[in-house]
């Protein structure tokens, strides 16, 4: 699971072009969206949908419903595990 989380962080940095950040800058449980944490927004949620599809083969049809899944690295990892 922790391996998955580290991998996710690298993929987030790659997918969102956050090359100034390192995986260590992203905490497992801090919110990815909003003004705290990484300050991501709805456009980045679209990138996460692409990320889940291209790296994990998981398709999300409704971008709005995915907000909870994308709350943090923890919640994304839980979701990916549950789909395995």
């Amino acid at each position, binding site marked *: 699971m922790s391996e998955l989380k580290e991998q996710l962080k690298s993929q987030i940095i790659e997918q969102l*072009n*956050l090359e*100034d950040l390192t995986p260590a800058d992203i905490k497992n449980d801090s919110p990815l969206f909003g003004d705290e944490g990484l300050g991501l927004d709805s*456009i980045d949620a679209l990138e996460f949908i692409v990320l889940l599809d291209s790296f994990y083969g998981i398709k999300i049809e409704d971008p709005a419903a995915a907000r909870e899944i994308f709350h943090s690295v923890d919640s994304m990892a839980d979701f990916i595990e549950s789909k395995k």
Partner: protein
Amino acid sequence: MKIIGHSYINPRGAFLNGQNVSIATEENYLKKYFSELEIDYPKFYKMDLLSKGSFLGDYLLRDSYKDLLHVENELQFIFANSSSSKETDIRFIESYEIKKNPSPSLFVYTLPNILTGELAIKHKWFGENIFFILTKFDSNFFIDQIEMSFLRGNEYCLCGWVEMKGAPEDECFMFLVAKSEVVNDNLSNKLNEILNTYRNE
């Protein structure tokens, strides 16, 4: 009109009102200036080069804004460069041609005026904004635009020449101008002098 502050950023240094405030030797100089300034603004990492450069140039000018009144409505952004958002354009093309996934987070930065949006969000300023494409920095052009802006009723112009495409000659030159009764015929020459001094540092 009166210049009340100016800043300059390039891959070698960051400057405020003629004074050097940081020196860089590393490739990622924007990240270096950002961390030195200890700004808490996570959105910075998502920005393209144009927005990052102007965000830092604007932050350097923060003391110049302190005593200004009505900035939220009466300050206009006048920005320009020669290559628009070319660096991000190329990266977006790569996202669909090579990575086979058109990237929305890159696409939203494929317009040069996005940097004015970022500055407006940061300050909560609702004033006018415009972005021009010029072949090179032209002080007379900026002076004309500033004069016309003041005639329309604005009181300040935050201007910028932001040519950033990941090249050694990248630069972000910003200057803040206030409306004033003082007639200054040589402002255009003065702007050229300021920029040339920065370029030769």
